[in-house]
């Protein structure tokens, strides 16, 4: 699995450079709230994260975390 991760990590910069240069005035679509990772109502997804944090052993990868819980 680590081999696959290494390949992915090496390919990522190549992929990221293969994109068009978008000017600021062309970003109307990108500026929409539905294009944000949290969506137009981030509060709606907060409780989902509570459930996953409490019911699954996998954590991380969703942004910088904090706090904790007694739900190990």
């Amino acid at each position, binding site marked *: 699995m680590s081999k696959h991760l290494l390949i992915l990590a090496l390919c990522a910069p190549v992929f*990221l450079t293969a*994109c068009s*240069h978008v000017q600021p005035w062309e970003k109307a679509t990108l500026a929409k709230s539905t294009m944000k990772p949290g969506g*137009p109502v981030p*509060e709606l997804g907060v409780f989902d994260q509570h*459930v996953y944090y409490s*019911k699954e052993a996998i954590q991380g990868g969703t942004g910088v*975390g*904090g706090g904790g819980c007694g739900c190990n």
Partner: protein
Amino acid sequence: MRKPNLIIATVGISLLAPIAQAENSIAWQFNQYSENDDRIDVRGGAIAIKKDFGTDYELSAGIDYDTVTGATPSWVALDGYTDQYTKGKAELATESRDGAYASLLFRDKKRNEYSITTTYSEEPDYVARSLALSTVLWSDASHNRSYNIGFSHAFNTALATEATTHSKDEDDTTNYLEVGINQVINKNMTLEVSAYVGNKEGYQSNQYLRIVRVDSSGNRSLAADSRPDERLSGGISLRAINSWSNNFSTQAWYRYYQDDWGITGHTLETRAYWDFAPQWRLNPVLRLGSQSAADFYRDYSDDVNYFSATGFGSNDARLGDYKTRTVQMNVEWLASQEWSLNLGFSRYTQDNGLSASWITGGFVFRY
């Protein structure tokens, strides 16, 4: 189900959203969660505010609260025996949790963002505190690529009560680092690649669960759930967001996870936003996941579901091998430019028998 601090997701969203629109808002959400087999029920809510101070400063703060009732799987003694046990349920005392967070974001002349967030929550048997720092650094004047870096430090205390398996308070600390690149691919698409690593030290056992240990003479007895006092974890995540038309966009997110307890996992989440009518938006979500079991986990139903007299051991299903599925539907009514109301229903299943449903709803007032 005792729960993590609300801020975990909120801070993450702020880190991962370099294309953000400034606005002030007040949001309120309620939630109602129920598991199958009369297990856990949760009722709760949250209030969040966001206020801009000029164009360079943004303050976010909020409180959340919930009440948990129900029961959880546990070993119980067989009738007539003192050293024979079977899977049963342990009733949980009704428990309330209160939490709060505050976050300050600052933008410099290049519009790079720096934020600091602190959180605090408490319940009768647990106190959680954290401090997080994150930054979004633009690599070019057109803001087509950003480097996102975030670090958090959490300090928690499991409080000893009459019901816990420990007689004195136990602490744990977590340091977490996540770095990522967010790239604008074209006028309709962004891609994000992140790597994360976390290290948790201190007490990490379930303070209520017990396991069955068998000594060299074959005698069985109950003992406390026992886990290593260090856990190193990490992985990568990918997120692609694409607008297909003026009223339809999708988001796909994948995460790979691995830790030194022997757990590996994959998570894939897809969501869509469809403005299907004036003022109405539909948001279906499908999330699939899988994880392998921790090295020291044994299921209640395993042929060998007990542990030797020493060593780590847990029957906590969260550390087991299972697949998950979430099917969710949210609907948002954009009542006006200032007001929007939302309602969502989710169905969550694990192939080990656990299932849960929850409803969330609330409003957002933007001004």
